[in-house]
């Protein structure tokens, strides 16, 4: 049934349907509404889960790690500093091959402190062994959580999934969202069956010391599994379409007028909605522009991206995060896709925008299309205010 919901509420509704046994979280803007809603559901008896209040994100992540280790489906959500504070446990959850879904309400990283949206938090944890999916709108947010649990708990995958939704833009944005019926969801998402679990009757140890004789294989196995996930995610997406009727195709990328385009912007998250609007407007004027939306940032779908962009002459990559001192994170992947390949765009230019919640407007997108020319640019900051910058401080 379609309801007009705040993004955070929509996530809470989706999680309620997934029936986690344990939820643990620590409040942080802009994620707080999600777990507030869930806490209310637990208090009202609408959700039969244990809601564990903790003193930090490190503890929240540890609680859900422990819960999943005992064979229970769990959920947590966080943002920004909270995600970074979880970082140590984030690597552990993947390393122990514990399936989990975490919502990251994307927010900038301190200092200076900033509560607004960019994607620096989740992008900074790209190497943790998690599957990272980025949502464009609140319907996608809901659906990626459902797909996330199904994917995460499959016995061939057994890796955690981070669903990334842009803070405020999606978490606090109101949109009509189709919340599925419980019956349909139960058909799509069976009860969690752990491969192994902590049980006093059958004691075992997880995540213990692996000396140089063993550690390398643990990392190789995750790397291989994430590669396999690239062909598994489309299968789950197809299953999802069969049950719920919403088609995310391969659920790795989405092409929007990219096939015959002369200029394409590659981006992730809610900004794709803004780009689509600009593409529509420019297409009406006869300009051959398009969008390539990356849904799955980890694993990164190199082959799909290659197919989508190999005949596009000019490609712009829009990052809402930076890797200070190097090429922007998403731009690195797009450039790497084409190195040494027969077909390739003539230009892959990289733009950084929207850091710390600076609005990416229709004009910002048009500026990127304008600046996308035969002359390649790298880490070109859009909507920069030069008047705030100076070469020397003091004096």
């Amino acid at each position: 049934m379609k309801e007009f919901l705040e993004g955070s509420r929509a996530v809470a509704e989706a999680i309620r349907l997934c029936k986690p046994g344990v939820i643990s979280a620590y409040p942080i803007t802009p994620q707080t509404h999600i777990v507030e809603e869930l806490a209310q559901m637990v208090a009202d008896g609408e959700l039969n889960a244990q809601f564990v209040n903790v003193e930090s994100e490190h503890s929240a992540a540890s609680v859900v790690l422990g819960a999943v280790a005992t064979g229970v489906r769990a959920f947590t959500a966080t943002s920004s500093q909270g995600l970074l504070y979880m970082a140590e446990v984030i690597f552990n959850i993947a390393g122990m091959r514990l399936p989990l879904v975490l919502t990251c309400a994307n927010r900038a990283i301190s200092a200076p402190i900033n509560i607004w949206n960019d994607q620096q938090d989740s992008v900074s944890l790209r190497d943790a062994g998690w599957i990272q999916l980025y949502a464009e709108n609140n319907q996608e947010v809901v659906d990626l959580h459902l797909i996330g649990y199904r994917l995460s708990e499959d016995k061939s995958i057994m890796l955690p999934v981070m669903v990334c939704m842009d803070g405020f833009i999606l978490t606090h944005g109101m949109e009509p969202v189709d919340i599925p019926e419980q019956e349909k969801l139960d058909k799509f998402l069976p009860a969690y069956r752990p491969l192994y679990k902590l049980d006093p009757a059958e004691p075992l140890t997880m995540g213990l010391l692996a000396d140089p004789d063993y550690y390398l294989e643990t990392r190789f196995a995750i790397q291989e599994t994430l590669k396999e996930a690239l062909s598994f995610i489309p299968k789950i997406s197809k299953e999802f379409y069969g049950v719920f009727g919403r088609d995310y195709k391969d659920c790795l990328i989405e092409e929007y007028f990219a096939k015959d385009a002369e200029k394409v912007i590659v981006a992730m998250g809610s900004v794709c909605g803004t780009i689509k609007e600009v593409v529509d407007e420019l297409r009406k004027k006869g300009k051959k522009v398009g969008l390539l939306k990356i849904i799955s940032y980890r694993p990164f779908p190199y082959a799909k991206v290659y197919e989508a962009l190999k005949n596009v002459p000019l490609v712009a990559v829009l990052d809402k995060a930076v890797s200070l001192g190097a090429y922007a994170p998403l731009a690195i992947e797009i450039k790497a896709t084409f190195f040494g390949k027969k077909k390739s765009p003539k230009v892959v230019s990289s733009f950084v925008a929207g850091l710390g919640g600076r609005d990416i407007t229709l004009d910002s997108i048009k500026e990127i299309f304008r600046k996308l020319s035969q002359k390649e640019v790298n880490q070109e900051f859009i909507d920069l205010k030069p008047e705030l910058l100076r070469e020397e401080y003091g004096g």
Partner: protein
Amino acid sequence: MFGPLIVKPIKSKGDKTGAWRIKLRPKFLQKNCSGCRMCISICPEGCVQGKDKNTFICDYNYCKGCGLCALVCPKGDIIMTEEEAEGEKK
């Protein structure tokens, strides 16, 4: 694909920590022992066994050579000796 992930508890007993000893091992002289059991209490490996006085001995398969038993013995009846001198270093 999965790498090594879990370990069953039997492994810990199968792990002969005696291999960690590098130089010294305790020698239970069994001469002046009063049977106070302090060596049993203090052993971090729990590998000291004995009941009556002058019967205490440790299991060198697990003894890491930390020397706490020798330190705590009120009678000086446990001494640390060179592995080589014993001629039976594991």
